[in-house]
């Protein structure tokens, strides 16, 4: 099974990429070695890091970008919006009237057996109806070139800060690659997110107080939490900074208590509220769920969203799109075997060595067994675990993830497998998709697990802008009315030292002569 290369077909770059390929050739092997050094220095100076197993290190961004054509992006954007719309409806249904069980769309047992289904979230109605404020939809391109959804991340998908920083890093380290390309900007993400969070505030609050809740500096994504809080201009808090009283959430400040209206939390449901979930959680805010139920605070993303990105529910998403939106799914899934069905279970058990087996509740690439690469013993262990509790597992055929040329340590290029995680923000009126997203790349040859928690790197992802359709975005009439270029050029002032060159030389010559005179005199 041959993977498709997105960049080169039979060694020749696709049309959009010719110029880029030429520039890459000009930089050359030696060029890439020195640029890689510059990049590492830049990343560590900027403190753009990812904590892996307790060690803080830069998230390596590869120096060859990924390019997505305009037309493909437009389809992708539509597909992502559709998916999120359906999943929002699904969540509202599951935690509300549960019509879908009556209509027999998804077996009730499948939902109730999910460890992400939280009864405690039942009946919490978000003020603007949004539960998925931020989504990260993971996509892979199969050997035929089709982009397929691999999984939905609707709890707290991370990585968006690297999308913004990767662009800056690339512009800093390899500016010449940008020559001749017009790329859609990614910089407005924080503004979109804060607008969506403000829109999600409980009704009746005119000037909501928004915070970002982080588990703390030891979390792998702490850089991102700090980045978002800074860029959105809101406070970055830990659980111990907040407390609940009378079903309201407050923040401790030197000027007394301050009420909080929206908590953009980057901690898991399990740790969010020790009253309802893990009683020994030190990271959460006791009582925050009750405050949300009383409509005094909005928790973003919603509590219990995990049910919608559960890997066993994933197989039902195309069906959910039809049920809630009456549309066909625009983005196909990866085929998934439902191990509760005995015939499918039998097939999987006898073909384990060719399939990928994933725990339904897992994330971050942990616990995945890739059949063709696993040892006999590993397969036996998995087989045993599956037969004990088939609900906890799903199986999928192995997809040959597409590849993109990636810079190696010796400066040469070599194809490496990639995936794509576009990010979407829902403000209740519109779902906005960040142009591009995070391309993760497996830096080890042949490796198909790209998760950053598994030592993967990333690539700057360019969505080319369609200049014919989108005029240069910001030249508004209002700006042109008082166009700065129409004003007179105001020269900068000069100090006294800039004499006319002739006079300057004259003075210099005379000054140079005087020591000689002194010597003579002495």
């Amino acid at each position, binding site marked *: 099974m041959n993977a498709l290369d997105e960049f080169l077909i039979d060694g020749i770059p696709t049309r959009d990429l010719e110029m880029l390929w030429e520039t890459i050739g000009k930089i050359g092997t030696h060029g890439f070695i020195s640029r890689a050094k*510059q990049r590492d220095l*830049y990343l560590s100076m900027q403190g753009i890091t990812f904590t892996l197993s307790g060690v803080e290190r830069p998230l390596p961004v590869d120096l060859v970008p990924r390019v997505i054509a305009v037309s493909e992006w437009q389809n992708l954007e539509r597909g992502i919006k559709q998916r999120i719309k359906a999943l929002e409806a699904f969540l509202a249904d599951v935690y509300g009237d549960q019509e879908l069980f009556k209509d027999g769309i998804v077996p009730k047992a499948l939902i109730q057996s999910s460890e992400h289904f939280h009864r405690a979230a039942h009946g919490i109605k978000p003020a603007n109806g949004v539960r998925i404020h931020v989504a990260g939809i993971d996509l892979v391109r199969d050997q035929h070139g089709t982009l397929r959804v691999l999984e939905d991340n609707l709890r707290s998908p991370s990585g968006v800060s690297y999308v913004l920083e990767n*662009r*800056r890093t690339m*512009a*800093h*380290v390899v*500016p*010449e690659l*940008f*020559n*001749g390309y*017009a*790329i859609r*900007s990614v*910089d*407005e993400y*924080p*503004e979109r997110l*804060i607008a969506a969070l403000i829109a999600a505030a409980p009704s009746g609050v005119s000037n909501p107080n928004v915070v970002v809740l982080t588990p703390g500096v030891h979390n792998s994504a702490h850089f991102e939490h700090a980045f978002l809080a*800074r*860029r*959105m*201009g*809101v*406070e970055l808090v830990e659980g111990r900074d907040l407390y609940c009283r009378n079903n309201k959430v407050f923040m401790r400040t030197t000027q007394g208590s301050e009420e909080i209206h929206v908590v953009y939390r980057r901690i898991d449901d399990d740790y969010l509220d020790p009253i309802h979930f893990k009683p020994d959680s030190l990271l959460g805010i006791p009582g925050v769920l009750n405050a949300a139920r009383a409509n005094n605070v909005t928790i973003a993303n919603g509590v219990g969203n995990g049910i919608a990105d559960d890997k066993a529910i994933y197989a039902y998403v195309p069906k959910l799109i039809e049920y809630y939106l009456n549309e066909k799914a625009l983005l196909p899934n990866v085929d998934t075997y439902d191990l509760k069905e005995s015939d499918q279970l039998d097939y999987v058990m006898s073909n384990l060595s060719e399939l990928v087996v994933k725990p339904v509740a897992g994330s971050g690439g942990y616990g995945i067994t890739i059949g063709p690469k696993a040892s006999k013993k590993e397969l036996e262990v998995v087989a045993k675990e599956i037969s004990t509790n088939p609900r906890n597992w799903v199986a999928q055929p192995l997809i040959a993830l597409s590849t993109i040329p990636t810079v190696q340590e010796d400066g040469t290029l070599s194809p490496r497998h990639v995936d794509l995680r576009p990010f979407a923000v829902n403000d209740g009126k519109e779902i906005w998709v960040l142009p591009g997203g995070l391309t993760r790349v497996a830096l080890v040859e042949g490796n198909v697990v790209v998760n950053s928690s598994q030592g993967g790197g990333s690539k700057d992802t360019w969505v080319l*802008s369609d*200049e014919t359709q*989108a005029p*240069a*975005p*910001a*030249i*508004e009439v*209002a*700006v042109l009315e*008082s166009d*700065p*270029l129409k*004003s007179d*050029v*105001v*020269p*900068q*002032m*000069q*100090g*006294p*030292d*800039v004499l006319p*060159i002739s*006079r300057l030389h004259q003075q210099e010559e005379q000054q140079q002569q005087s020591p000689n005179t002194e010597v003579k005199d002495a």
Partner: protein
Amino acid sequence: MLSRLAESSFWLGRYLERTEGISRLLLEFHQLLIQDQRSHIARGCALLTHGLGLEMKAQNSQTLVEIVFGEDSNPSTIRGALQGVRSNARSIRDTLPSDFFESINRLNAAAESFDPKSPGSSLKNILDRLAVSNGIYEWLAPSDESSHFFKLGRSLERMDLVSRLLSLKIEKEWRDQGPATTLRAVGGLSTFLKARVPITAERVRHFLINDPSFPRSLFESGRMAEISLREIAQVNRTSADTILKPIGLLGSQIHFLGNDVEEEERIIARTPLAVEETSEAIRTAFFRPVGSIVWSN
């Protein structure tokens, strides 16, 4: 003190600040332009050269880098401003801490190795060296009349640069990246974000005009200029009021600005003029210019 020394201290302050201001501006513009729509690049380049008072026209980000990095003879470019730093530092070398003089030479070496192909790292290098030079001056230079002239020059140059930056309207031109870029171009992003309010074009303009906590806001630089000038006037037993009038008026306009957007525009347009008037008044009062005498038969 000697008028010549006073004048060189004043211009040393101005050119150091100018080198930093243009470097930051170029760094950020370059970032902005290489990602931009093709049709928009020429306009973006024109904005920067126009704002810096340069006559040359750039076609793409690389020629823009070359033009703004510039040459020794043009003090509106990085090289030219650096040349101003060096020549003024040289002429008052005996009064400067030797560590500072050394740091200026290192700064110059950093500029010598400027690589227009990767302006990002080169400019960061220059900015690092500038920070060292400014730091050494703060720690080691005696707080005397000379340092008051230095700081006065720095404050006036700041006002000039910030008003030039604001007149480019980057934050309106590039709606998404513009506001953050404007702040980065004066190193003000972190200070702005401390207020914990979202970045909008209006807030950014307001912040750079009259935020009292940011040392480079027009208001704060004006206030610092006034403090330095009053110190100088006291030493020289003269009154600073007449000299201060242009920036003093500006200061009170900023103080009573409120949310008047049109008045903001007027203030931005008036600032370079007020700086020039003040600079001229300082020259007449303290540097005792004489017409250049050329003997001839």
